[in-house]
Structure formats: C-alpha cells, structure tokens
C-alpha cells in the first residue's frame, strides 16, 4: 500500500506543503481564490521546528484506522475515538516512552535516528501538539482522496515528502 513518507533530512522549512494541503482542501482548489474563502481552508500537515536540532519536521497524522501508535502505547495516552476515528492524546497519561513515534510507518529511519539522538522531548512535544490540534479541529490527513498524488508531496520542492510503497523508502 502506498503511503505518505516523510524524509525530514530534506526539509527546507518552506511550508509549501502546508499551503498546498490547505488549497487541496479548499472549495475552489485555487490558491488565488482559496485565500478569500470563509471559513479558511485548513491544512493537515504542520511544519514543526525541533529547536534542539535546528531542523524542522513536516508532521502529518493520518489518524490511521488501526493505528500502530495506539496499539503500542502502554499507558493508552494515545487513544482512538471510535466514531470519529481520530487519534487523541492525553498528556497526563503519557510517560514519554516514545514507542508511538518509532512505530509510525510514515517516518524514514532518519527520524528514528533523530529520536534516538536525544531530542525526544521537544520533538514529541510538537508531534503531540499536532496530533491534538488536528483532532480538536476534527480534520485528518486523507491522503488527498481523489488525487493521484497528495498535494503536499507534489508541492515539496526537495522531495522531503514522497508517496510510495511503505517498504520502498
């Protein structure tokens, strides 16, 4: 199955993926018209800086149906709301074990390396915020249903985002 893969080492922080995502989820599907739409179209991908490393990560949560992060979370800090099938996060239960991040199928090994290198707290902090932000708004990455190629992948000038068979990257 093809999935959106993230190669953070290539990200330049331009945020093109964010705007492309918002446009893809607008009424008009056109940049110039979308900027005037009310309500404003929402993006499902977020560029999150990792200050410790001086890099930024494009983070997008698909709120996967049988989400691996949910199944591995030992404390059920990450849990799935059955109806909306959104992943939510309860910081009070989280013990910062990072298991969820390492099983997420969307990040390439470098991301795992970053995690091991000790920037866990800050990066997870952000990842966590993204997940809850998207859950709150009730929006999730739908891999751009109806498009051949996800908009963020198409927009990324450095191919930090790729759409590929999961085991190919």
């Amino acid at each position: 199955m093809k999935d959106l893969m993230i190669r953070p080492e290539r990200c330049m922080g331009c945020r093109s993926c964010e705007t492309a995502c918002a446009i893809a989820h607008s009424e008009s599907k056109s940049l110039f018209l979308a900027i005037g739409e009310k309500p404003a179209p929402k993006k499902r991908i977020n560029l999150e800086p990792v200050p410790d490393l001086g890099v930024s990560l494009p983070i997008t949560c698909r709120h996967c149906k049988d989400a691996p992060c949910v199944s591995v979370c030992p404390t059920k800090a990450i849990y799935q709301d059955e109806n909306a099938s959104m992943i939510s996060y309860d910081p009070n239960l989280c013990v910062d074990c990072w298991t969820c991040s390492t099983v997420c199928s969307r990040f390439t090994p470098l991301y795992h390396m970053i995690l091991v290198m000790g920037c866990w707290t800050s990066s997870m902090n952000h990842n966590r915020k993204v997940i809850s932000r998207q859950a709150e708004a009730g929006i999730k990455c739908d891999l751009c249903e109806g498009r051949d190629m996800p908009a963020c992948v198409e927009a990324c000038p450095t191919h930090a985002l790729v759409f590929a068979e999961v085991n190919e990257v």
Partner: protein
Amino acid sequence: MKTEIDEKSIDLASQKILQKAEEEGIETAWDRYEKQLPQCSFGQLGVCCRNCNMGPCRIDPFGEGAQKGICGATADIIVARNFLRMIAAGAAAHSDHARDAVLTFKKMSEGEAGSYRIKDEAKLLSLASEYGIPSDGKSLEEIAANLADVLLQEFGKQDGHLQCTKRVPKSRLKLWAELGIEPRGIDREIVECMHRTHIGVDNDAVHILLQGLRTGISDGWGGSMIATDVQDILFGTPQPRKSTVNLGVLSRDKVNVIVHGHEPILSEMIVEAAEDPELLKLAEEKGAAGINVIGICCTGNETLMRHGIPIAGNFLQQELAVITGAVEAMVVDVQCIMPSLGELTGCYHTKFISTSPKADFPNTVRMEFHEDRAYETAKEIVRTAVENFPNRIPEKVTIPEEKQECMAGFSAEAILNALGGSPDPLIEAITGGAVRGIGAVVGCNNVKIKHNYGHVNLVKELIKNNVLVVTTGCNAIACAEAGLLLPEASEMAGDGLKAVCKALGIPPVLHMGSCVDISRILVLASAIANRLGVDISDLPAAGAAPEWMSEKAVSIGAYVVSSGVFTVLGTIPAVLGSQAVTSLLTGGLNDVVRASFAVEPDPLKAADLMLEHIDEKRKALGLN
C-alpha cells in the same frame, strides 16, 4: 506531467522546433517550468520578505500561522514593499538603457564615437528647444553636446521635476502635483524605492504604492522617453517599412547572426558591418551566400523599425532559434536574455557572444562593446559568425518554412504623418464611431500562458470590435507572426476600422517599437488628449499586457495606469496576498489617478473588459 507541444505555443514554427527539441532531448523554458511546478504559494502571493537578515519571513495566507514578519510587517506591508521593488528594478532597467544611449550620444557629439552620426536633425532641434537649449549659431554637434548634458542631469537631478513630464496634458500634471508624485530625478526615485523598502522605513501600503507610481512615471515619461528620443536622433526616427518575421527568416545558405536583447547601440553597427564588402567576401569564401542579420526581442524590434531587419521571434522563441541549428552567432546585450542559452548554444555550433560590460552569461565569447570602437567590434563579431559558418552541422539543421510578412515602424511621428500631419483624422474616426477606441497591447511572453495565445487572441478580438491597436515589444512580434501587422489584416477588423485602415493604407495593428518605446504611445495619447482638450483618462482607450513577466512590465504598468489608462494584465502579479494592495490596484487607484488595473488571463474576457471601459469613456465624452 508533460505538456503537449500544441499546448505550449500557438505558433506552428515554434511547435515544429519544440518537436525537434524533444527528439534531440534538448531542454527548453517549458521543461524547466514543469520542474518548478507547483510554484511556491508564498511567492505567488507576494507574502515573503527577505529584506533583512532576521528573515526570511512569510505570512500564512490561511490565517493559522504567522500573520506578521519578525519586525511586525503585515502581509499588506510585505506585498506593497515587494511590488515597489519590482517597479524599481523595472525602472532601473529602462533608465539605465537610456543612460547608455545618452552617453553614446554625448560621446558622438564630442567626436569620440566616430561611427555614430546624427540621423534625425529635426528631432535633435525640436528636443533641444523643448529642453530650453538655444541653437542659434551653433553646430549640430554643439547642440547635441548641450542636450546630452541636460539629459544626463535628468538622471541625477536634485531640484525640480523631470522635463519630459511637461509633455503630459496639463490636467494630468496637475493631478500628479496634487498627489505629490511628480517625479524628480530618475535615479533618485529608484534609490528612494530601495531606501523605503529597507527594514523599518516605509510601512504604509498606500504610501509605498504612491512612490511606486512616481517611480513608474519617472520611467515612462523619463528614462524610457529619453531612450526613445535619443535613439531616434542617433539612428533615425522609424518610418513604416516591410519585413518578415518568425523562425523561417533564418537562412539556409547565409550566415545567420542574431541580435538579441534591448539596446540598438550595438545592433545598429552590426547591421552596418554585415554589409561590409570585406566580410561579405569572407562569407563567400566560407561558402555562404551572404550575411543574414536577424533580431529577437526588443533589439529585434529596434532594427526592424529602422532597417526592416527580419525578426526570428519573441522572448519564448530565443531558445528555439538556437535549436534550429542554423545560428552562427547569438549576439546579446542586456535584458530578457535567458542564461540557458549558454548550455544550449553548446549543443550546436552557435557562438554565444555577449557584448555588454554589465551583462554576462555562462559559456559566452565576450566581445565587449565600447562606443569608440563600435564599428570595429561589430565587425569582429560578424567576422566570428562568418568564420563559424563552416562549423554548421547540416544534419542538425531544421528551419521551419513559416515566415510572415509584416509592416512596422509606426513611431508617433510616422502615425501623424500617415494621418496627414495632425491627429484630427484619427480623432474624427473615433468621434464618428468608425474607430471605437484605442487599445495599447504590449509586453512579454510567459510560459504560464500558451505562447502568443494571449497576445493574438486579445488583439484579434479588439480589432474585430473596431478598436485600433497600438503595440510594442513581444506582443508586436506575436502580432507580426499572426499576420496582423499588414494592411490586408484589416479584413479581420470590424467594418469601421477596416474602412479607416483601407483609406490610410495602414494595418489595424500598429507596431510602435520596443518596450522603451511605450513612451511613443504616451506621446500619441497626449497628442490626442490635448487636441480634444481632455485628460488621457477621458480617452476611449485601454491597455493590456496579456503575457507579461518582467519587472520592466511592472514599471510600465505603474506608469501607464498613472497616466490614466485602464490596464488589463493577463498573468497574476504577486500581490494577491494582500487584500488592501489588491483592492487598491484593481479599484482604489481610480480615485487616485483615475485608472486602475484588472487581471484576466482569458484574452477574450480581457478584451471585453477593455471594450466595456472604452464604451464607458465614449459615453462620458458624449459619443456613441
């Protein structure tokens, strides 16, 4: 995503060469455009700022992320500043071209540019008197020297306002004075743009845009107009003449020398050198049947207007000309020259010769051009081309047969001549209704619009509706390729315009020159407005740039609108990230300078907008 060839250009010759490029695996601007897609949204909206090293900053157009730059600049401020910088760059390009023309003129008057002469005495004398230079008892050279000095002062002037603006109808000049946008020194306006856009200086969008208008005016009624005037004195004021255009003008058996860029200073000499018996003899020895000088872009327009030199194409055809494999030398000066030509000419035998002290490109043979050795340098260049002829690789040569006759050379003077010395016949045709109005259609090509599609369709629609079209730049070349620059093209015009064209023996689309020559259009518009005793903004006239891309075009837009002409743009300028700037440019300006912009990529709809505007103005003048 691969665009089909017939989606890239409407022009058959271009399509054929694009096909050849594809077969040979040669990359063109269209391929590179595809690799850029999708283009950065922040850039397209104009909401990124790199004006200081705390940045770059960008504003989230969807309101979730940052709404201010680090210094606090909002989208309105950033968009306005970026727009002002584009105007400054465009005005700088035109005006620096003008400065070089004046410097050549000055050297000529001092006897230090031996190859140049005064070709239009009448224009010299009338310009001198306009600038208050007494001519009694003086030689032409003395007058020229005095005029050159005064013109040079226009660039660095510290007191008062630009002299050329006196050509504007009084009402307009008064309006500019009231708004405080009468231009001062040409260089000063450009410098002030850069100053104002430095971090922490001018941070009010309206205030910033007013400086944009002033800078634009200093280009249109200053730099560009001076360039046109001085070039006319040095090289002759254009008169209608016939020639041919499109890639088919490349010769199978002659040495093809292409002059590309913007300044006629060098190309004038190349045209002469190509007739030098010594070089013609050399060409014969090298097995060529002669020397064929051809133009591209505005250098091409200049030599077409003055000598009937054929044109191989407009902006997007520069690479295609090389891909024919039949070009011995691509000689360039400044502006709109693709750096890709360096790699491209390396795929063929073509010599890529750069001549301007201020412009260089990868992979060029540099033959720097200086006035004192003008003719010698031109000869060396042509000689290099001739000597390169035997290197042509016959299997790589494909010259499309498409070429088209055209008539060009309608300077304001030539138009008035054609009308019998005064604008009255044209005014009568307009007031009588045979001619509904005047459309000024100008500007570049842009890969975002199918090559020449915007130009040709817009112009055709206008003439069909009895609008007389005046054109310059790449639009003029597009019209020429489509056969619109011939008296016979009046068959495509509405009945009223057709009759007028037939009576005067003119085409329905008048080629008025290169991009700096939009100043000619301003002069013509002023003449008509003055004759009618109205302002330019009262005329049933509208402008359009259907395929614009360069910063010069932004400056042109600024001065055309400041002069009172409603203007439709075919590609979207990077301003939509600010509601305030967008609505000012497309509406609010009406209350300021009584004209504004519109954006409409569909040429037929753009023509409708222009017609609507023209009809409104007719009504206001009591015409029907």
